[in-house]
């Protein structure tokens, strides 16, 4: 399957899904005009790829410095898809990079861990 790359804009993150290397990255800020329209095709591509994954070690690098409320909801769906893949025989490790002083991003990370227990979650506070 072809890799997925979407360049960052001021209001949407860079999406860099190296399906060939099993490494998925999301980087930047997320407050697009329509979060559902931005994330729906990404989640669709992700699901197609995940459905074909068997016994794969997947690494997800997340460096999101800000996301608005509607992006938060869509990100929850991204992690839901990853969790299902982890429950069906794949190993998913999420590296969650955040400003060490950013409690909101820490708390959202904790929320994800509560719901998506099949994912190995690695909190990575970064000093600024």
């Amino acid at each position: 399957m072809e890799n997925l790359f979407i360049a960052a804009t001021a209001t949407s993150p860079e999406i860099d899904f190296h399906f060939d290397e099993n490494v998925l990255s999301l980087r930047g800020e997320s407050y697009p005009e329509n979060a559902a329209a931005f994330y729906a095709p990404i989640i669709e591509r992700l699901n197609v790829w995940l459905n074909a994954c068997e016994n794969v070690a997947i690494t997800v690098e997340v460096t999101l410095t800000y996301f608005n409320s509607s992006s938060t909801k869509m990100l929850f769906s991204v992690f839901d898809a990853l969790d299902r893949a982890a429950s069906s025989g794949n190993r998913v490790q999420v590296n969650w990079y955040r400003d060490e002083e950013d409690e909101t991003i820490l708390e959202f990370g904790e929320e994800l861990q509560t719901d998506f227990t099949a994912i190995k979650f690695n909190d990575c506070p970064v000093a600024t």
Partner: protein
Amino acid sequence: MSGILDQNCCFFEIAQKRNLLFYHKGYFSHSIVAAMSEVVKLQLEVAGLSTSTRRRIFSSFIELSQNIVHYSCDALAEDQGQGGAIREGAMCISAEGERHLMVCVNPVATAAVGALREKLEPLRNMSIEEIKQAYKMSLRADTPPDSKGAGLGFLTMARDASAPLEFAFHPREGDTDTTLFCLKTII
């Protein structure tokens, strides 16, 4: 020259006295919000606020201004826009001692006032723990059909605020179909 100064100094004086960080009245579109974000970020950086305070002000700024883009009922005619929504409103950010006041005003359909009140009123009596709990539930719930976002916006603002959200509705002269909606958050 002095005429120009006389007419405008009153506005600048008030802005200075009230520690105005940001003010915009007029059209809001997604690209206008993106440009304003640059201004707000820079202002907050220069003001030397903590990461956490900056984060909460910026988050509330985005939620408030995207509310105007999506829900204000004063829209520019469709054909004038580049496909995206352009709607009218006003946004003000000012500092009062350690606190930051953010006030947003935009017209809404008078018929929508009841629904807005029902969403906002309960938040005023909730503790921060209850707000976080409601936020977690809303995060996992299906998106309401009338919402363009996640229905999480008000809860996000309430979570970031250091006092209950304040809101008011003002009837508009000569236009009973629309009502001015005023929303205020303190960070």
